[in-house]
């Protein structure tokens, strides 16, 4: 269950981002992108999220997880194909083993949605 560590990192990042932008919470939506080869299970992250968010500016925020499939590029036939889940690291076109991964390792915080309190924050740019 390393997803709890990941959820805690997410909240730290969210707090930092909100602060840097000169805003305040609460955060309503947290959008993340998680690759199929990242070792993160979306359900486990979702489960850990609620616990980790308690008492923070992310408490009650919805976690939106965009899952990115794994993709490989084949040196031999030059094609790019999507990996199955669970993956076998072979070209989907010619079947040769492929070591070059071009997508699927993502584990990114993409964006946060906050309630717009323009009256509190002043004019929006």
């Amino acid at each position, binding site marked *: 269950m390393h997803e709890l560590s990941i959820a805690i990192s997410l909240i*730290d*990042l969210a707090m930092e981002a909100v602060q840097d932008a000169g805003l305040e919470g609460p955060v309503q939506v947290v959008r993340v992108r998680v690759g199929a*080869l990242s070792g993160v299970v979306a359900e486990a992250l979702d489960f850990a999220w609620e616990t980790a968010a308690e008492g923070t500016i992310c408490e009650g925020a919805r976690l939106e997880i965009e899952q990115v499939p794994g993709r490989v590029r084949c040196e031999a036939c030059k094609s790019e194909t999507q990996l199955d889940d669970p993956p076998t690291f072979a070209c989907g076109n010619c079947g040769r083993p492929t070591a070059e991964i071009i997508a699927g390792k993502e584990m990114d915080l993409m964006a946060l949605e906050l309630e717009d309190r323009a009256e509190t924050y002043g004019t929006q740019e």
Partner: protein
Amino acid sequence: MKPRILEVRTKILKKNDEIARALRDRFADLGVYVINVVSSPGAGKTELLTRVMKVLSERGLTVAAVVGDLATENDAERLAESGCKAKQILTGTMCHLEADMVEQAIEEFDLESVDLLFIENVGNLVCPQGFDLGEDLRMLLFPSTEGEDKPLKYPTLINTCDLVALSKMDLAGPVEFDTQTARANCESARPGVPIVETSARTGEGIQKLADLLAAQIENKNSKRAQYL
């Protein structure tokens, strides 16, 4: 009311990555080669490492190790039987090591005199994957007793490994371990990965593994010498 959207676009493990990068730079400056050892629990990491560390230090290398476990100092004590320095990291409930734990654990090592540092991760085939520890090489132990299809069950971690040591090969016969299929399964999870067959009990493959690691260290040092 329309929500306000804050674009962030940053890696979730940014903090760990930053610490790992700093560690990697420091290791490079001081000429320390670092190996992150991963496997399931009970794969024989400590036993194999103790053997390999002894062989490498007999060849004149200064070797040290840190080892992560949820509880007990047993593994550090066993690793120290090799004659090398070993430090236990207690992770409490954590299922993997993170870069800051390594950073803290090596504080008392005189890194300048260390040639090779093993980081024995917590036994786990899922969680250690995304956590960079500043290592040069990630080694997987895969014991014969776990059955040849293990790499097919945990392909994503194995895909991040640079070297596979098949361990407990002295038990391959009794458990009817199909070595050829096991090798093919490792290949399918990580095409082209070097595979060494070892047994800490009989000593099979220990010299070969030591040769392989020594060559990697040599390679890094000669690159470093060019750079300096």
